[in-house]
């Protein structure tokens, strides 16, 4: 199957490009980027064709695209790809507004192409194992959940609301929300959020703390802060603690690491050996396209996660909890 990539604006583009080059049955056919120089550079790096026009790439015989544009551009590119009958794997969050997300879902449905959202954390072996433990019933009934998705401050367009849809809350809410929905089958009902710009001189918030009410009388919190300093041993991480009636499960998605002390690095580092989630994600998407199976992470999954982030922004504005149904 031939696959193209649209835009290298997002930092994850490189990981997906490497994955495409490594997956059997996939021919990584080319790159289009609205930033022509960036597109040319990426095309050379990954040894693929550089398309100077999107229409040209979409008119080619590729069957699917991977979109790593700014969040705000997801809708435009997804709709164009769907109209050209290309399957779509789009970086998270699905979009920056509910309207855009719905338009993307509709377009892919209308043109009968697959739409998958890139939530690679679902594919981390540690998360897969955690889900197995949850489903074994060892924890009993879940009472509460504590999640974190901290990271370093990404800069660039991530801090410009018109391109990203927000800051740390938009960037880091959706992964853990998706993991909770996937692992526990719970839905989010009401969101409270405290967020602020406290660390960096940037236009968006860099710190976020969400408290959430879920179905099943379960509550959860999620720390989305971009608060890992440059000296931190790694970029950040994803953790989840489940409090159950018969047990507690503490998960660290990137907890498979060893310490590295190199004089050249001037800081301690964590070397991860937990598996290549980006590769597994892209491979799973490709498998779904080739075998015409349903994708595992749908547009609706992306929309549900986006709703939580948008409710968090509304809560931060009024300083009280906000019901998801009120922002739909």
């Amino acid at each position, binding site marked *: 199957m031939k696959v193209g990539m649209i835009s290298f604006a997002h930092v994850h583009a490189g990981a997906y490009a490497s994955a495409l080059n490594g997956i059997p049955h996939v021919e990584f056919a080319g790159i289009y980027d609205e930033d022509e120089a960036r597109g040319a550079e990426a095309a050379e790096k990954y040894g693929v064709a550089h398309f100077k026009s999107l229409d040209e790439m979409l008119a080619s015989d590729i069957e699917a695209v991977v979109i790593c544009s700014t969040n705000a551009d997801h809708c435009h590119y997804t709709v164009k790809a769907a109209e050209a009958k290309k399957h779509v794997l789009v970086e998270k969050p699905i979009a920056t507004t509910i309207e855009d997300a719905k338009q993307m879902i509709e377009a892919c449905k209308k043109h009968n192409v697959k739409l998958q959202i890139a939530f690679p954390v679902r594919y981390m072996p540690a998360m897969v194992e955690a889900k197995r433990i949850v489903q074994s019933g060892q924890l009993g*009934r879940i*009472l509460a959940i504590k999640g974190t998705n901290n990271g370093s401050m990404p800069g660039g367009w991530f801090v410009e609301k018109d391109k990203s849809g927000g800051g740390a809350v938009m960037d880091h809410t959706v992964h853990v929300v998706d993991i909770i929905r996937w692992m526990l089958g719970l839905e989010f009902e009401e969101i409270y959020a405290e967020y602020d710009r*406290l660390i960096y001189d940037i236009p968006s918030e860099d710190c976020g703390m969400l408290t959430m009410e879920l179905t099943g009388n379960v509550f959860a919190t999620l*720390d989305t*802060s971009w608060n890992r*300093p440059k*000296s931190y041993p790694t970029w950040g991480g994803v953790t989840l603690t489940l409090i159950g009636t018969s047990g*507690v499960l*503490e998960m660290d998605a990137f907890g498979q690491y060893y310490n590295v002390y190199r004089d050249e690095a001037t800081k301690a580092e964590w070397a991860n050996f937990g598996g290549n989630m980006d590769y597994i994600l892209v491979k799973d998407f490709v498998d779904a396209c080739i075998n015409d199976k349903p994708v595992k992470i749908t547009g609706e999954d992306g929309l549900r996660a986006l709703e939580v982030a948008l409710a968090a922004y509304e809560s931060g504005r009024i300083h009280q909890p906000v019901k998801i149904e009120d922002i739909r």
Partner: protein
Amino acid sequence: MKPGLKVGLIGGGAMGSTHAEAYRVIENAELVAIADLIPERAQAIASKTGATIRSANEIIGDPSIDVIDVCVPTFLHRDFVVKAAEAGKHVFCEKPMARSLKEAEEMKAACDKAGVKLAIGHVVRFFPEYISAYHKVKNDQIGDVAVVRTTRGGFALPTAWNDWYANYEWSGGLVLDMIIHDFDYLRWLLGPVERVFAKSTLGRDYNRLEYALVTLKFKSGAIAHVEGSWVNSGGFHTRFEMAGTKGLIDYDSRQTSPIKLTVNRRDGTPGVPVPTGAWEESPYTTELRNFINVLDGKEGIVVDGNEGYESLRIALAALESIETGKAVLL
């Protein structure tokens, strides 16, 4: 008999017996009397310390006693503290200061009126890791504090006299009883709190597994996430992480103990876990030593009634938020 202040202890449970041990090594104080409803418990303390076993009223009424140390369940603090103050005794009162703000106000007023000193047992301010982190922050090593996360607990619901911890009206549950330690520490470190939002298993359907997550927004701008757990996850432990404009501190008691001891024990062993550690001096001793020194006209750090009151306000606001589902402004 040792020179120094004479102390009468009311309540010889987990904290009372810890305090009794502390007075044995504090040079300028002597534990002279112990009152407890359970005779064996009073006897155990008396035989270790030489204190005499008497009723609480006898102890408070004894003119030779200078200090009353109140280690009874929370809902009884007010009665004993007010009586002790009226009898002209200085008072050390375990945390939380009281079950309600009204009780705390009466305690402050009684001590002010009698001209006696009141200290509240916010002992975390005397734990070496918390003191060290406090100074690290105050010395601007991580810049302005932005986001703080704290964890306390990880053991099953404590069991004590009349199962009072399980009685919300008596103890206030873990938010009032336990993570008030973190509220107090964070308020000491970061200043006043502006807004509180909290959720807990309280009032849901499984009260013997209490778990609470509290978000505090400080007037400084900082955001804190405070976790409290009376659900067994390997025994009592504490954690903190503070991220600032210039760096980050993190601490996990499970990873930093110089000594690890595991004793096979079933979950739900009766009692209240009191932290132990490889310390130069137990923080509980340091805490009492400071109070005794101040009473003795020396230098010392005391968490007074006003401080205890302010930390109580945060805990009660968290309980209000849990009950109403709304954010509470302080």
